[in-house]
């Protein structure tokens, strides 16, 4: 223990693994210190769903033995991480953040947990989440079995959802990285609000086997880390074909940002309105500065605009219909009423009333969304927009702006508004990068690319982070 300085909790994966290999400290010492820190500070942010100290120390002893025999398994070996509590870990509770499932235990590890285990990674805890990943549409940040996710930069503000604990835990240096999941914004939003780097992989690249289903055709699992480089390392470990996941794309991912096309050959699409009109006025110069850094990498920038399609109603209809079908037994048993958020309960119940015609039409318009992106991304390699137009909301404030969005169109140019919903409908990868602070709270920008273009996004993100230090900032102790 004496060898483990708290500075190590802010190191990247490669640096931490190098220290383990050079025997600066053992995996057991690091794991013990990481568990101490997670168990002490996790509850401070309502970020911890379940500590896994005993299993983690058991794993760490095996890692030390491997390191002693020079059985190196890659950069994740011995590095502590946390997993969103919708991923099953055999023999331990998996609550999905929801009271009706508080005692639920599975006998399998989720595929991603199993893959990380093989890479020598050490799971130190399950991390908190919005109940049922917010499938019914929730009104308050408190929609969780573990209470509202509190933002490490200011605990009076929300950490974002639904991967709340993953965002908080990485931002506060409680884990080196975490796994989150996204159906429509649940990796990108907490990443932006907490000031961490979050990667939403292409639909099907990462197996969901052993993960709670919310919307079968939209769920993705991805890494939340402090840097783009760490996201690449984790994605390489968790991606790949899985016969247990019907949505698996059957593709692997090799993290090789050095082999992407030269930046000078890339075209990056953006909409001036996303930087000059929609964000809060004080946020605009921060977001414009981030865009200027991206431009300075040498890429050609071109104007881009999403076609006028009903992204909100399509997303809302698909998630509600699929989510209510997933949880039909919970709803019909009445146990749904044990959930913490009344709107979530009402939304799940109402989802059972969605007609087959509406679901089918939503899925048909979704096809048009895919086609629109396919057309747009012929001439544009990457789209860029603010991840969210502002910072995190106050913890007690309602999250109004219900799923499906307002009936009217907000004023101003369309630009890339709705990029989170549209990108999720099309199954596209996205990377959210911390890009500054407003009133002490983080802001983020997102890069969105073609299917399976994660290396391009990561290469740009890595270079952006070579030129900025937002991802290295630490919240107040």
């Amino acid at each position, binding site marked *: 223990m004496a060898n483990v300085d708290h500075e190590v909790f802010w190191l990247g994966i490669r640096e931490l693994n190098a220290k383990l290999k050079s025997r600066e400290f053992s995996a057991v010492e690091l794991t013990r210190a990481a568990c101490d820190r997670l168990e002490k500070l996790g509850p401070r942010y309502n970020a911890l769903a379940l500590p896994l100290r005993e299993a983690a120390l058991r794993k760490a002893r095996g890692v030390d033995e491997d390191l002693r025999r020079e059985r190196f398994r890659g950069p994740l070996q011995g590095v502590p991480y946390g997993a969103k509590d919708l991923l099953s870990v055999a023999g331990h509770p998996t609550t999905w953040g929801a009271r009706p499932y508080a005692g639920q*235990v599975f006998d399998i590890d989720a595929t991603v947990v199993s893959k990380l285990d093989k890479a020598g990674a050490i799971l130190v805890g399950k991390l908190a989440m919005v109940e049922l990943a917010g499938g019914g549409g929730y009104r308050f*940040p408190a929609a969780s079995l573990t209470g509202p996710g509190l933002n490490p930069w200011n605990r009076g503000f929300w950490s974002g959802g639904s991967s709340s604990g993953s965002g908080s835990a990485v931002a506060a240096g409680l884990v080196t990285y975490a796994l989150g999941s996204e159906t429509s914004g649940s990796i990108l939003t907490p990443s932006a609000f907490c000031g961490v780097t979050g990667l939403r992989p292409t639909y099907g690249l990462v197996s969901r086997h052993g993960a709670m289903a919310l919307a079968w055709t939209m769920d993705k699992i991805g890494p939340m880390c402090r840097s783009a480089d760490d996201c690449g390392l984790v994605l390489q470990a968790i991606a790949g074909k899985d016969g247990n996941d019907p949505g698996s794309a059957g593709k692997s991912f090799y993290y090789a940002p050095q082999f992407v096309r030269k930046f000078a050959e890339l075209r990056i699409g953006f909409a001036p309105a996303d930087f000059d009109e929609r964000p809060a006025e004080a946020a605009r110069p921060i977001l414009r500065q981030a865009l200027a850094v991206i431009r300075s990498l040498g890429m050609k920038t071109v104007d881009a605009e999403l076609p006028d399609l009903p992204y909100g109603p399509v997303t809302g209809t698909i998630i509600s219909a699929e989510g209510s079908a997933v949880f039909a037994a919970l709803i019909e048993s009445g146990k749904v009423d044990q959930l913490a958020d009344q709107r979530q309960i009402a939304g799940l119940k109402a989802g059972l009333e969605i007609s087959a015609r509406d679901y089918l039409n939503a899925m048909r318009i979704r096809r048009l969304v895919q086609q629109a992106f396919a057309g747009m991304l012929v001439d544009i390699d990457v789209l860029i927009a603010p991840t969210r137009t502002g910072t995190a909301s106050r913890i007690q404030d309602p999250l109004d702006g219900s799923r499906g969005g307002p009936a009217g169109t907000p004023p101003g140019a369309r630009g890339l508004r709705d990029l989170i919903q549209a990108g999720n409908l099309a199954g596209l990868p996205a990377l959210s990068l911390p890009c500054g602070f407003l009133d002490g709270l983080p802001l983020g920008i997102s890069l969105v690319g073609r299917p399976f273009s994660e290396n391009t996004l990561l290469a740009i993100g890595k270079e952006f982070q070579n030129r900025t230090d937002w991802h290295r900032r630490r919240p107040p102790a």
Partner: protein
Amino acid sequence: MKTPLSRRQWTAAVLGAAAAYPQTPPAAQPAAAEDLGAVARQQVRRNSELLAKHAIPMATEPAFVFRP
């Protein structure tokens, strides 16, 4: 997928989870449940209307076998 656990295993697991439960009380939820039910059903109807307004070419098939 579910597994029977011994009483000791179950207790240890659930107590472990309980140790991490809320440090902050949930926010008050003032709206009546029946109001929220009506709002949620109205949202479903509004989405339905907005979807219906969009002309979809007949040949557009649903994105069922979903591949990006």
